[in-house]
C-alpha cells in the first residue's frame, strides 16, 4: 500500500488516543466508585 506509514499512522493515532481516553474514564470511574455509596450511583 502506497503511503502506508501515513495511513496506518493516522488510524493508529486515532485508536491510541480514543483507547487511552476510554481507559482513563473507566479507571477514574472505578476509583471513584470504590468510595461511593449506592445512593451516589443511581445506575447500579
Amino acid at each position, binding site marked *: 500500500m502506497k503511503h502506508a506509514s*501515513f495511513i496506518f499512522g493516522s488510524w493508529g493515532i486515532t485508536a491510541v488516543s480514543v483507547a487511552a481516553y476510554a481507559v482513563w474514564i473507566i479507571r477514574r470511574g472505578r476509583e471513584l*466508585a470504590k468510595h461511593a455509596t449506592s445512593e451516589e450511583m443511581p445506575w447500579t
Partner: protein
Amino acid sequence: MAGQSGTGTSATRRLGIVVILMLGVLALCGLWFSAEDVVQGSTVRIMYIHVPSIWTAYIAFAMTAVCSGVYLSAKNRSLAWDRVAGASGEIGVLFVAVSLVTGSMWGRLTWGTYWVWDARLTSTAFLFITYIGYLAVRQLGGTHRQRARRSSVLALLAILEIPLVHFSVSLWRSLHQEASVANPNAKVELDGLMLFSLFLGLIAFTLLFVWLLLHRQRAMMLEDAFSDRGLDVAITARRNEAGA
C-alpha cells in the same frame, strides 16, 4: 459503599462490545476491502476516520449546547444536564483533535502540505481552542451551580461556530473539498464500499461517543458527589459545634 462496579452497567458493556465489533469491521473495510480512489489512491483510507471524527465532535458540541440550554431554561436547574454538557464537551475536544491530526496527515499526502491557513482548517482550529477554553472555564472553581451557569452560557455561544466551520468551504474559497454527502446538491459523491465504509464509521463513532458519554458523565456525577460530601462534612461539623 456501593462496591467496585464503576460506571459500567450491563447495557454499557453490551454497547461497548457492539462498538468494538463495528470498529473492527470498519478497520477491515476501510483499510482492506474498500477500493482505492481513482485520483487519491490509498490515501482515501484516512477519510474513514477523519470524517467520523469531526462528525462526532459536531454531535458532542451540539449535545453540550442542548444540555446547557436545558440547564439554563429548566425550572429545577438539574446539574445532571451540566454534567452531560461537560462530559460531551470533553469528548468533542478529543475528537476534534483527532480530526485535526488525521486531516493534517491526509493533507500532506493530497495537498502536499500539512497545514494551510485556509477557512476550513482555521475555523476548525478555532473551534478546538474555544472548547479547550470551555473545559478550562469548567475548572475555574466556585460552586457546581456557578460552574454550570458560566459554562452553559459559553457553550451556547461556542455552538455558533459549528455552522461557520461546516459552511466555510462554500463561504470562502477553500483548499478543502466540499462535503461529499451532506452537500447542498444532496448528491452522494462516493462509490459503493467507500460509501458503506464511511457510513459504518459514522455509526460506529456515534455509538462510541454514546458509550464514552455514559461513562464520563457518571464519573463526573461521582466527582460532584464527593465534592459535595466534603462540604456536607464541614456543615455537619458546624452543626455539631452549634449543638454542643
